[in-house]
């Protein structure tokens, strides 16, 4: 008990080297070890309680994340105008509340964050951009997770030559930096909406395979697997009924941690012109468009960038929180 606890504490301190003091986290770690000792799944009420009791940063991040997601879902009701509608009489209109914008007001409710070179409303474009970026990132994360977990479970259970080959391939894949990998794949596939999702899946699956396989390797030696085998379960039944339910928490945790990386990657690809084709308002595209007007229209660069940063920051913090909640000793 003591050794597990101190170990958990130490890992926790190392993992949380991000402004939170390890002393501050001590009671939480104790709770977690207790939970593991009881080895009972936490009820929903306890999950909710933990969300509220967590450090303030997590709460702020949660609120920001929910606001951003709501903005994306409600985009068509929240946005004053269509993000693609042009108003050539008001190109590069400053935000209405800024000094220059205030003296030269547009129609009420429009141009809260200014307009771009074709008079399109920046706020509307950002909201629709979040929607597009979130859709692409979520789809990529889900499919990468499915692919990676399937491979991880299959290779972990099967072992043998195929396992060795797949793992060597996975290690090679992982040793390559994501942006470079994405650019290599785009170089081949070409850009486009579907291709962007494909690229993001292909750059990301290996992380899941690596982590899940190592978990399966330890799970397959446990008694409940032995018992299932003794009762005559075939490998498929063991995988589906016994192994996969056990690795789902890890896979989901990994997915939340990977989400921010995927969002940045998607924005970067679109920014370079290698992602979502225009005129679709993805966040990366907005920044790429705004770059040409950096001299005259700062709002085209500041607001989309702030949005990306807020989205990635909040999902990173939430990812850390989910990891601590699921298993503080997880080294992800």
């Amino acid at each position, binding site marked *: 008990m003591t050794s597990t606890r101190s170990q958990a504490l*130490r890992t926790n*301190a*190392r993992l949380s*080297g*991000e*402004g939170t*003091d*390890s002393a501050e986290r001590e009671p939480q770690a104790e709770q977690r070890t207790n939970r593991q000792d009881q080895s009972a799944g936490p009820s929903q009420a306890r999950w909710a309680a933990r969300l509220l009791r967590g450090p303030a940063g997590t709460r702020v991040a949660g609120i920001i994340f929910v606001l951003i997601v709501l903005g994306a879902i409600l985009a068509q009701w929240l946005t004053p105008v269509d993000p693609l509608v042009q108003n050539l009489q008001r190109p590069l209109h400053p935000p209405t509340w800024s000094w220059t914008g205030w003296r030269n007001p547009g129609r009420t409710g429009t141009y809260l964050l200014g307009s771009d070179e074709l008079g399109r409303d920046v706020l509307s474009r950002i909201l629709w951009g979040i929607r597009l970026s979130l859709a692409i990132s979520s789809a990529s994360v889900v499919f990468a997770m499915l692919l990676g977990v399937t491979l991880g479970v299959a290779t972990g259970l099967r072992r043998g030559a195929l396992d060795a080959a797949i793992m*060597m391939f996975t*290690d*090679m894949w992982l*040793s*390559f*930096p*994501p*942006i*470079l990998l994405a*650019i*290599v*794949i*785009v*170089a*081949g*596939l*070409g850009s486009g909406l579907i291709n962007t999702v494909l690229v993001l899946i292909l750059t990301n699956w290996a992380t899941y395979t690596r982590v899940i396989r190592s978990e399966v390797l330890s799970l397959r030696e446990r008694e409940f697997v032995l018992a299932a085998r003794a009762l005559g379960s075939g490998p498929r039944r063991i995988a589906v009924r016994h192994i996969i339910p056990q690795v789902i928490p890890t896979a989901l945790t990994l997915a939340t941690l990977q989400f*921010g990386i995927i969002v*940045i990657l998607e*924005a*970067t690809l679109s*920014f*370079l*012109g*290698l992602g979502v084709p225009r005129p679709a308002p993805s966040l990366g595209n907005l*920044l790429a468009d*705004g*770059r040409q007007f*950096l*001299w005259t229209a*700062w709002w085209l*660069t*500041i607001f989309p*960038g702030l949005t*990306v*940063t*807020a989205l*990635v*920051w909040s999902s*990173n*913090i939430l990812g850390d929180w989910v990891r601590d909640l699921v298993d503080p000793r997880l080294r992800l």
Partner: protein
Amino acid sequence: MGRHIAGRVVRGLLIVLGVTTIVFFASRLTGDPATLTLGANVSDQQIDSYRKLMGWDRPLGWQYLRYMRSALQGDFGVSFYYEQDAVQLVFERLPATLELTAAALGFAIALGLLAGIASAVRRGTPLDAVFMSVAVMGRAVPVFWLALLLMYLFAVRLHLLPVAGREAGVASLILPALSLGSVQAAEIARLTRSSMVEIMTQDYIRTARSKGLPSRILIMRHALRNALVPVVTIIGLQLGNLLGGAVVTETIFSWPGVGQLAVASILRRDFPVVQVSVLLLAVGFVVISVVLDVLYPILDPRIAQTHSVAVP
């Protein structure tokens, strides 16, 4: 130990081979290279004869073997766009990329270590809180947005530094290096801090302190050296991201490096140049990771011992 390094080199070669293969097959997947090169304004007959001329009508396996053979000889063909030897074209860009990544890395290490050590030593103070909040934000800020912000502030608003290009010497290097290095600096600072904090609680540090060692020597000679091992690992991992980030930074600042050429060539479908530049980035990455593997045992002799036990 020697066997360990040899294994790493072999793995590195496999990565390079893999990347070469992926780029080849992927570039054939997107469409007919003859049509892509010649454009829309040519007759089918012309396309057919060009395809025959380039050997693109042969089976894919044959094309792959031919491509690998000429790749081994360092011949990747001629750029469709510049009509120059692709290899030469890419290598002309290499010094600029090396200059940028070296400057960014130097900046990242200097700032990251300083901030990390300062936060660890002054743990719990406002200084620590500020540094670490900035470091956590550094994980969320996209490199290209940071680059745009710096460009806006220092070049557009303050007119202190050139906006883009490489003509102005050191002055034009500052902004790209700052934006490329900042994210890595944040990562290095975070890890240095947590690693230092852990080391500072060890018994030998308490012993050193109790025998009256001045804290500067204690920190620099006793704590830092041990704390640096994971930091070197992360710097190694970050180097790959640095190369990736260089692609983005170069494109934004019109820095005439390999990365900018790679992106521009992808957009122009200039496959010979894409192949060489992507391959060069991959080779650079592999060389870095092998060198780092050799470096670890020098920093931490314990690593060398475990290897000699594991690989008899």
